[in-house]
């Protein structure tokens, strides 16, 4: 079992979700986050003074998958999130020790579903 953590551009979330749904991946967790990349950020200003924004808004997805779903999930995320520009994001794969469904007590691969 793996936990796939992906940081993507917020405005690509819908494309990534659609892409995941196509691969039959429906369960995910989505949170707001702020992130640093190698970009200079975008320029904002406030009453004549420029602001350098270097903590950029990102969206973080967490998806727990069984081994046979890892490849297709990664590919789906990339397909949905890629624009070719700096800031597309990163995907981390983390080993998942266990997964428990609270309602039924199921464990492991069954709980991931």
């Amino acid at each position, binding site marked *: 079992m793996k936990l796939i953590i992906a940081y993507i551009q*917020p*405005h690509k979330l*819908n494309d990534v979700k659609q892409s995941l749904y196509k691969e039959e991946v429906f369960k995910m967790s989505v949170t*707001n986050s702020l992130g640093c990349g190698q970009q200079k950020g*975008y*320029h*904002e200003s*406030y009453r004549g003074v420029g602001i350098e924004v270097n903590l950029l*808004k990102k969206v973080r997805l967490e998806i727990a998958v069984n081994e046979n779903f890892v490849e297709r999930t990664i590919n789906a995320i990339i397909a949905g999130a890629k624009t070719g520009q700096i800031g597309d994001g990163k995907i981390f794969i983390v080993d998942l020790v266990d997964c428990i469904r609270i309602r039924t007590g199921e464990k492991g691969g069954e709980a991931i579903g």
Partner: protein
Amino acid sequence: METKVIVDTMWVLITAMLVFFMNLGFAAVESGFARAKNCVNIMSKNFVVFAVSSLGFLIIGWGLMFGDGSPLIGLKGLFFASGADNSPATGEAYKGVYSAISWTGVPFWAKFFFQLVFCGTAATIVSGAVAERIKYIAFIIFSFAMTMFIYPVVGHWVWGGGWLAKMGMFDFAGSTAVHSVGGWAALAGVIMLGPRIGKFDNGHIKAIPGHSLSLATIGTFVLWFGWFGFNPGSTMAADPNAIAHVAVTTNTAAAAAIMSATLASWLLLGKPDLGMTLNGCLAGLVAITAPCAFVSVSSSLIIGLIAGALVVLAVMMFDRLRLDDPVGALSVHLVNGVFGTLCVGLFAQDKITGTATGNGLFFGGGSKLLGAQLAAVVSVAIFVFVAAAITWAVLKAVIGIRVSREEELRGLDIGEHGNEAYAGFQVFTTE
């Protein structure tokens, strides 16, 4: 100076200030119904449009609207409201080039200021319908066209001694002259712009929820309050019976429309949707704007009940027609502007507050008045829609009217203004 002139002037100016305050109402309603990432842009549009209106109307709008001239357009005293005028003289004693408005006994600049805030209202109606995807500069330029030409021409027809007035068409405070003008211009904009990204997905209609229904509610209350200047103020005289009558018909229509809109949304959609209730209030107010001084309080109740149901149906209809209107401006101002205009032809009672309108269809007057109202609806529709569509088309070809896909997704606040409305908050910039 005569006491009457003093009291009339105070009335005209105070009610004009209430109408000015409606711009706050529009800003709050529109931004409340839109997403947070576009809030600065919507606030900016609503703020700047009053400045544009003030200047456009001063430069030439007033002159085209109220200058003596042909039945179609004013020709005298066009620029900077500087034609000859000896207001507050009225009737026979009036010597000047703005005779269409010489019936009201207040100083010239009081007339100007009062009419200016109405012009501002028409211009700001458009900003809601085109929200969340219009280019700021395109909106500003369009608003100049609205306030310097489109609005004044129709205003001339209805209030400036033009052909609709001569035909016996009546529009007390502007269901046609203000609201439907804004509505038709907005419709042309909505069609030329196209829907927001994600609104119509593969044939499905998607909801794009507003970020603050609190703000929307505050805005609606402000508009309701301001309407007590909009309608009763249109007497342009402190005529106690008339202004009291108009205040009550105005309020009654709003109240009735709130209830019918709430009921309609409860029945059709399962729950009383606040957005629909708010739109219902505004629909009732728009619908009573033309007839408010010409109908009884009981009639205003019926008008309001119908307006509330109408707006709920209209919102659903525009969605099904794939016309994306984020705030319901078309349903409120266009549909009910037309409806309110026709209501004069149906419910008018001759001289009920003094004006000899003749009786409407339901009061034994036959269809003469209704015919005049209908002619007005059709002619204004054609003129405004075509003029607005041409303006949008030219803007589209020359500078473009819609922001890029990326900017629209990221939010117009950053793209158009480089500002954030809610700096420090993590605004979920996606659906």
